[in-house]
């Protein structure tokens, strides 16, 4: 039983290394060849947060809003907080279970 567990762990380790190595190789290939970038847009995955993007005001703002549901702010934000609270209670309940 012990040796079987050892073999399973070993196989999992090897599989993990293979997956990670493959992902790394593909990622390096993509970066090496500038794949996925768009000419004229001076950013990429290296810009993590929306305010990191050059010209983020134009990208995220302007006359691009969709107002469905937002004209009832109590309902809109009520749903927002209700859903957050329900999920918080659920994960708390899960954690309190042994």
């Amino acid at each position, binding site marked *: 039983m012990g040796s079987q567990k050892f073999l399973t762990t070993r196989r999992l380790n090897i599989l993990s290394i293979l997956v990670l190595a493959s992902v790394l190789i593909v990622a390096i290939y993509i970066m090496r060849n500038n794949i996925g970038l*768009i000419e004229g847009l001076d950013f990429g995955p290296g810009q993590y947060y929306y305010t990191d993007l050059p010209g983020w005001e134009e990208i995220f703002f302007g006359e691009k809003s969709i107002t469905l549901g937002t004209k009832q702010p109590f309902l809109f934000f009520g749903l927002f907080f209700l859903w957050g609270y329900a999920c918080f209670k659920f994960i708390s309940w899960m954690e309190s279970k042994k």
Partner: protein
Amino acid sequence: MSDVVTASKFKWSDLIKKEDWWAIWLGLIVIIIAAISKSTGAFKFNASKIATWGTEKVPSFLGSFDIASLLITMVVLTALFSIGLVFMGENVPKFAIAFPVIFLLATIAYILGAQATMKKYVEYAFWALAVGLLVSNTVKTPDWLKPAVKTEYYIKTGLVLMGAEVLFSNVVKFGIYGLGIAWFVTPIVIIFMWHYGTKILKMTSKPMVIVIATATSVCGVSAAIAAAAASKAKKDDLTFAIGLSLIFTVLMMVGMPIFIKAIGMDPMVGGAWIGGTVDATGAVVLAGEALGPLGGQVAALVKMIQNVLIGVIAFAIAVFFATKVEKDVDGPSVGADEIWHRFPKFILGFIGASLIFSFIVEPAIGAKETKTLLGLTGGWKGWCFCMAFVCIGLESNFKEMAELVQGGKPLWLYIVGQSFNLVLTLLVAWLLLSGVIFPIPVLTV
């Protein structure tokens, strides 16, 4: 130096003696000075920026920085962090001697990250970790440098500054569609990954599980930083989460638009799918744009809403860890007093800055002016995070990190969690944007 990110029991004197509170005060000081600079124009308060190099315009890294500006930035940061350290009773002269080296390493990381290709793919976080790890695993972090290796101090201050950028008013930008895609899915993915990581994979580090889960479901690096600080994660936990997020983001950014176009998916649904699943915001906008202007706009809006959710989620994680995770399973329930003691106080600064900018500053001075102000504070935030990542590297060694790999469990947590995220987000995006429940939104681009 503690291996953990955060604070302890509260006394009123903590307001001027504890790091968490000083992170709040320093963030506030930077915001106030930036506001004065912007409104009066009497002086400039820009943190130094490293220009992109390796281009026709700036071929060499030597042309990417301005030494005078770098020196001013270093002096300002030394002064700011020293003020807090004086009140915290730490040795400021030793800090002041070591700090320029941390700043220098951060500058090197910034310069490496500013190389034309690197800037677009991995930027400073990767290089800051790499530079720190290189030092600690070769020449070892010297003792004289350690007084300035203050990861938590830099991270918390950076997070308070980032709070100002979490403009809550943006949650409404894509109406009920954005709320549904970004907010319905995100907590479910976190709960799923929490269950999978703690109960199925039985990972020993619960903070690592929540940090990876938050990075996967919210927005990668920035969410990981906030979750790590809120859950008192170890520095290595954060390193793993960031590493996984960075690598997979590159793949998803390229792979998802190809797949979406290959199966002929509607660009609006595809854009929402990308916005809800790809970690880094820059990658989301690019992948969305690859579908066309409509896909790009929907992807950007969904991601921006997720970005804004960091504040709420970081707060929830801090409360969850204070009330449930750190609590003795067989012990009595935790009272409000104890929750307050355990609660990482800087989160209040993070949330406070978000609320002030969302509901006071932005309505008062307008969106355009707010963004200019955030342009000033954002530069200081970047330096705080960059120095924090350098310090994480300086405090980590490969031997200890190898022990944390736990048979590849963090990797499988990310892969399984992200796969679940992909399926659920696609389902919700399709339900909300295909006309099944609500009318298909008309978005002018």
